């Protein structure tokens, strides 16, 4: 066959592959927005679930998710950032560094439900935190650790080596160099990674199934040792565990969760874009 004809056919098929994916993604988003948006009222966002979750709102689930995400980041950001600083600024090219990198890759690949098991065994049972915000946040925090390390490390490594040399040549110490030159110039990248981590933590269900998520708890938590409802788990519950839930409530919940996650991603994209515009070197 004529090679140019083959090429035309091949390129067309490749284009269709992309079109298919894009179309499906668009379909998912459009369906959720179209059917979910009408459900969004002030009452839906601010009320507790009522009548066995068949009416009322999702306020406790929103609050619960925000608590969990905040807890996860409070735990993961300092450790992740310092680990990234180690890898980018201190680590030598040796076996230990190789092992750390491999561990990060593996941590990123562990199935989310295994994180749930781990959180249950370590935090809930072994440390006796019970099913609580603390257990759930720590589990989510460990889960997003590799994401934060990888993003922060990339951001740190993109700061030109010459800046470090200049700072050191002026008699600044290594930490002063990191603190005053490297970190300030890596902050946008670190922030982007952190927000993406937040989005990831907000959407995950499996890790919180046995560590914190409450089936139905129309109260706000009083301490970090309380259980909470969470948006992703709530969506799972009302879609599979409770019969005869109004479709509007299901779509509304899916919409709020999706909007929350996409909003975080949007912020990350904006920061990244602005930083690229402003980059001075």
């Amino acid at each position, binding site marked *: 066959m004529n090679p140019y004809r083959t090429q035309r056919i091949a390129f067309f098929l490749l284009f269709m592959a992309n079109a298919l994916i894009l179309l499906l993604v668009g379909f998912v988003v459009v369906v959720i927005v179209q059917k979910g948006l009408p459900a969004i009222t002030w009452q839906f966002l601010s009320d507790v679930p009522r009548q066995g979750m068949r009416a009322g709102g999702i306020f406790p689930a929103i609050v619960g998710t925000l608590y969990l995400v905040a807890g996860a980041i409070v735990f993961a950001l300092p450790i992740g950032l310092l680990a990234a600083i180690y890898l980018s600024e201190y680590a*030598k*090219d040796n076996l230990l560094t190789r092992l750390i990198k491999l561990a990060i890759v593996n941590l990123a690949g562990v199935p989310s439900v295994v994180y749930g098991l781990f959180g249950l065994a370590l935090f809930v049972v072994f440390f006796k935190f019970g099913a609580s915000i603390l257990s759930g946040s720590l589990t989510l925090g460990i889960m997003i650790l590799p994401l934060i390390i990888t993003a922060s490390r990339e951001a740190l490594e993109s700061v030109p080596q*010459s*800046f*470090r*040399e*200049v*700072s*050191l*040549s*002026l*008699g*600044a*110490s290594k930490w*002063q160099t990191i603190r*005053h*030159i490297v970190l300030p*110039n890596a902050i946008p990248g670190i922030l982007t990674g952190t927000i993406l981590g937040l989005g990831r933590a907000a959407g995950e269900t499996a890790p919180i199934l046995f560590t914190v998520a409450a089936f139905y708890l129309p109260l706000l938590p009083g301490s970090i040792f309380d259980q909470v409802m969470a948006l992703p788990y709530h969506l799972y519950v009302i879609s599979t565990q409770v019969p005869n839930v109004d479709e509007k409530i299901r779509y509304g919940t899916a919409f709020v969760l999706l909007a929350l996650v996409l909003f975080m991603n949007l912020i990350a994209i904006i920061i990244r874009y602005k930083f690229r515009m402003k980059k*001075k*070197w």
Partner: protein
Amino acid sequence: MVIFKIDDLDIRFGSVHAVRGVSMEVLAHEILTVIGPSNSGKTTFLRMLNRMNDLQPNFKMSGTVEFEGDNIRKMNVEILRRKVGTVFALPLPLPLSIFDNVAYGPRMHGLHGRGKLAERVEEALRRAYLWEEVKDRLQESAFKLSGGQQQRLCIARTLAVEPEVILFDEPCSGLDPISTAKVEDAMVKLKQQYTLILVTNNVKQAARVGDRTAFFLSGEMIEIDKTDKIFTAPRDGRTDDYIRGRFG
């Protein structure tokens, strides 16, 4: 007075033998120029003097370097670098304002207080012949300056730390002739207070500013002498060939 005493210095990076058995002394308040073709080890030699080579992977050395009588390997590296400053080949402003660039070193060494810092910055900029050009725009980004101005800013930044020795690593390689002349002017005047070591690819520059000149070839120091002696009656034929441009 001897500032640096270098004895049988040997430097390797992995399998690359960069500097071979160099011994020499650097005297106070002189401009010592180091010439030689590229890859002759002169920049590696220069970076040794304030231990910037430590940052390179696979760095190995033998022999000793003494700064004012102290072995530099046993000195606190931050204090050494404070006393022995560097001006790099390319202008490398930090991504800060003009003021903050110059104030960076003093701040890191614990100098605080607006008045004191401002004084130190002005003084350093004056000595680098940049003050008049930037005094009204100190808060602007250093990247807005021209190449020559940026390089003088880097000199000012080094001066602000109040070093005793300044190492220049081909400081004019990226500059046009007019900017080069300005930087050279600054160097000659700095000699009164500082000891200057200048590595350069530009033989004529060495002739213009150097008190003494050392010639490096393939990691060895072929000879060192008064600059006019090197340029009129070198002892080694290879030195003669190099400065006459027979190889480069």
